[in-house]
């Protein structure tokens, strides 16, 4: 019993510094309400033990006073050589100190949004593109990127559709599947890779406003060497996978053909 008692306080100290503690408060039934009120949680956390650190308010006041005006040198003679340029007062001054609302469920930034994918879209599925310059083409889904967009490819050899990002919304997922478990996608294929490149001149113009706005933009889009490399690698692997799957020749001509609605066909009644 004695040795146990000795060990315990040591253990607690260790736990404090290393392990992250469980939150003491929790929301009730996924609502805004919390189980413990602010006063109650103050007691539970023993926050009265925590020493308050006083923020040095004087320093900030001094800073504000110091920044009230800027001393600028002026030319000419017999005029003092300097002027105090005072800061303009803001257009509106708050009459009350803005209270900081505690956000129990703060707004999520776009990066943190949950990305969903339709249940019938899985890597290796054949998709029908419904919009864009490749509309009507049947392409192979490779994976879903971080942003939620789908990474597809024709393969380019079959229908001219390159490695490309595509939105789920503009796509019909068919039931046809190709086994792409053995297709190794290059690591660098991510959203940044496919991000549209703005020409340097244009970006400078938008920032400064002084660049020649009538200057011609950069030459038309040229495929980079790494794109060619990645396309060739993925195409080769994908063509192998198509060959290996049952009915390879039919699948090849299927991916080469374009989709269209024929007379008498009703998309809502069709199985894809």
């Amino acid at each position, binding site marked *: 019993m004695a040795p146990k008692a000795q060990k315990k306080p040591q253990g607690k100290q260790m736990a404090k510094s290393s392990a992250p503690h469980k939150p003491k408060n929790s929301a009730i039934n996924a609502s805004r309400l919390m189980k413990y009120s602010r006063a109650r949680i103050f007691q539970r956390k023993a926050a009265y033990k925590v020493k308050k650190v006083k923020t040095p308010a004087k320093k900030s006041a001094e800073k504000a006073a110091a920044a009230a005006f800027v001393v600028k040198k002026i030319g000419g003679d017999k005029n003092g050589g300097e002027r105090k340029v005072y800061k303009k007062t803001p257009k509106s001054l708050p009459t009350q100190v803005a209270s900081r609302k505690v956000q129990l469920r703060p707004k999520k930034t776009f990066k943190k949004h949950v990305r969903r994918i339709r249940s019938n879209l899985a890597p290796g599925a054949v998709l029908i593109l419904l919009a864009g310059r490749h509309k009507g083409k049947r392409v192979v889904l490779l994976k879903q990127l971080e942003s939620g967009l789908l990474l597809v490819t024709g393969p380019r050899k079959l229908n001219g559709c390159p490695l490309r990002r595509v939105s789920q919304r503009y796509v019909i997922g068919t039931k046809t599947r190709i086994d792409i478990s053995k297709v190794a996608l290059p690591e660098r294929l991510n959203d940044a890779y496919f991000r549209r490149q703005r020409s340097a001149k244009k970006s400078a113009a938008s920032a400064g406003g002084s660049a020649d706005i009538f200057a011609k933009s950069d030459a038309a889009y040229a495929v980079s060497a790494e794109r060619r490399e990645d396309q060739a690698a993925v195409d080769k692997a994908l063509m192998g996978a198509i060959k290996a799957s049952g*009915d390879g020749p039919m699948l090849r001509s*299927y991916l080469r053909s374009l989709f269209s609605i024929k007379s008498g066909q009703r998309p809502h009644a069709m199985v894809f």
Partner: protein
Amino acid sequence: MGKLDKFVQVGRVAFIANGADSGKVCAIAEIVDQNRVLIDGPCTGVRRQVCDMKRLHLTGFHLPLPHSSRTAVVRRKWLAANLDERWTGTSWAKKLEARRLRASMTDFDRFRCARAKQIRNRIVSVAMGSLRKTSSAKLRKPNKKRHLRKA
């Protein structure tokens, strides 16, 4: 109107056209009144129930059932008459199956079907062309308009 050879009678095998159990066949076990019958399809998964005649399409099959037969009796007679096989052998059932298959075709299936048709049609047209070449005069259809023009 066609022949009045399918009667609403006890033992008549009927096809359920709509509602729950649509697409299944059953036997009429009893007649309730002008519009309703008691149906039972133990071998096809149709529970014994009263059904409106408007939902039923009568088939050409008839079981020798005594009226108000219970489900076990219906099952026995159904199996003895080998009705499942006889029903699926009818062109009616075959057409239904064909319709079901067509509706369940995926995009790839439709492509394969169209491609197969194309291949077959090409073979046919090539054969037709060669036949036409060898015996063109014999194969020509008598042109009625030609006769009129000459006269």
